């Protein structure tokens, strides 16, 4: 079968030692299994490590603060036997905050991973492309102009994100999608959206405008249980849909022609992935405002940990949660005397990464 094999056997030496074809195919199959197991072990280790970090940050979030609760107090509340004061602090203030961080962080991390992998460009993140901005604009508009609240705001956010993504798709489409085109169109749309948002704010009443501004920075400080229920439910649906969709991700990392020749309708699959990403970003934005840069940075960190060449969806979601939880801890406790919204801290982490990404892309002369 192999020309060099045939040549070697022609010399007459070592012919008996040469394995039969069936044996060597068996050996290669074992090697393939080992390659896969190595990848799996590493993925499992990353997921486990990130979960431990999530758990630790969540516990720290529940414990730290002026109320001076101990682990025992918190545990007592969680099993339903806490003191009224501890009960109030944990169930009204801190636990909703932790859960909001988990929902928003995972939705943003996963949404960013879907966008970046599908469009094959690390800059193609929903916050850079104006998709998050579209969700914010529609949410703020529905609050200020229509006086909506609750699930209606979430729906408005989804519609806004979808409109921006749809416009981007229509403007960037040229018989196929290229990542860099999508990015440029998206950046243009992002500035239009932020201009409209500014106009809305200046026209609003001062009190409403300041509420909207606080929301726009991205915060998880005052989340109610009913909001958590709505977004948690939506998140579970979207996570399930993404899990069902995910076997297609490895093919989408190839070119459209390659994906098609392997039996995947590449255009439809890319549209589906972007739609899932849009919905995830809308869930996060409706709940917590546009928390800056989480969608941009979570997936690259996850991919670097797991090894490149993977979409690293689950790991991106967990890394997103870690980022939001830790950033929120910093936002609450690092600045003596006053707490800042979590979006300020993630912005401080994300902006330098964005600059580095652009500088590196320029040096390589590639689109990422």
């Amino acid at each position, binding site marked *: 079968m192999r020309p060099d094999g045939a040549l070697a056997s022609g010399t007459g030496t070592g012919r008996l030692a040469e394995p039969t074809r069936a044996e060597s195919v068996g050996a290669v199959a074992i090697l393939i299994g080992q390659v896969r197991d190595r990848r799996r072990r590493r993925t499992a280790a990353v997921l486990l490590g990130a979960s431990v970090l999530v758990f630790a940050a969540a516990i720290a979030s529940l414990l730290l603060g002026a109320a001076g609760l101990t682990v025992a107090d918190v545990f007592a509340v969680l099993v339903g036997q806490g003191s009224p004061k501890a009960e109030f602090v944990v169930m009204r203030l801190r636990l909703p905050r932790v859960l909001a961080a988990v929902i928003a962080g995972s939705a943003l991390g996963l949404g960013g991973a879907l966008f970046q992998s599908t469009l094959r460009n690390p800059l193609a993140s929903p916050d850079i492309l104006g998709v998050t901005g579209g969700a914010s604009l529609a949410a703020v508009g529905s609050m200020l102009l229509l006086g909506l609240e609750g699930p209606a705001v979430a729906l408005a956010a989804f519609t806004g994100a979808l409109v921006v993504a749809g416009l981007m798709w229509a403007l960037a489409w040229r018989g196929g999608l290229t990542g860099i085109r999508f990015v440029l169109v998206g950046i243009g749309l992002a500035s239009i959206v932020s201009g409209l948002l500014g106009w809305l704010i200046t026209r609003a009443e001062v009190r409403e405008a300041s509420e909207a501004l606080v929301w726009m920075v991205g915060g998880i400080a005052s989340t109610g249980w009913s909001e958590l229920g709505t977004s948690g439910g939506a998140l579970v649906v979207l996570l399930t849909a993404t899990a069902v969709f995910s076997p297609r991700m490895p093919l989408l990392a190839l070119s459209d022609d*390659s994906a098609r020749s392997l039996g995947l309708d590449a255009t439809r699959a890319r549209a589906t992935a972007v739609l899932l990403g849009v919905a995830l970003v809308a869930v996060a934005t409706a709940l917590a405002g546009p928390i800056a840069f989480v969608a941009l940075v979570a997936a690259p960190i996850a991919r670097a940990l797991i090894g490149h*060449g993977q979409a690293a969806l689950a790991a991106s979601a967990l890394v997103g949660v870690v980022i939001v939880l830790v950033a929120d801890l910093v936002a609450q406790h690092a600045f003596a005397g006053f707490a800042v919204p979590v979006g300020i801290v993630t912005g401080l982490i994300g902006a330098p990464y964005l600059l580095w990404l652009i500088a590196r892309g320029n040096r390589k002369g590639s689109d990422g």
Partner: protein
Amino acid sequence: MTRSAPHSLRAESLTLGYDGRVVIDGLDLEIPDGRITSIVGPNASGKSTLLRGLARLIRPESGRVTLDGRDIRSYGARDFARRVAVLPQQPVSPDGVLVAELVARGRHPHRGWFGGRSSDDDRIVAEVLEATGTAELAGRAVSELSGGQRQRVWIAMALAQRADIVLLDEPTSFLDASHQLELLDLLTDSNRDHGTTVVMVLHELNLAARYADHLVVLDGGRIAAAGAPGDVMTAETVGGAFGLECVVTTDPVAGSPLVVPIGRFHRGEF
């Protein structure tokens, strides 16, 4: 492992183009089953476009391509991919993907909706890695490989589809002479061992004439000549299609036609 049943792949009054510009113009073509077909032609003659049309990568402006009598557009995407494998020109590999992982993607058309791996998959991937001489690269990143190794890995991925028909767009471009031969030998192995029908666009006329059972010469979106290389590759055909003055003699090694091109200089000066 032999093929399930004979296949017929044919183009019927096929017109292909981009944005209204016609590239392939009302072309009729029958691909011989179980043989190696090579498509040659000058630049911009529509070779790659024709291959993309046969591969269902572009929609015909008019006419159709049929597989076993059915319009290829009526097949489900996976169903078609189980029958016809395609290697596009210069495919891009994602950063960091490993050889075994990339080749395993060739099994996708055979997987269920949830992407579950069957017990056969590892064995088939191992077989094609073995056959393409890339087994020892299984754990390496595709992006680290040399051009020749990388092209063999892509061929392995296409072969892992276990399709009876394999279409390749310039599989030998950017390879040096020895790697070109190695690759064409590999495809011949697949043709002889599994009865795979191979259709490839090639640039190099003499290699095309040597390795093909059936040669299709394209010129300006139409077929200038088609048939056995010995019948098709004449000084007249090459002159007409390529605008190239030449002498056609016999390849002293393979016995196939050998095109010796003639330029303005070095004519009969010895």
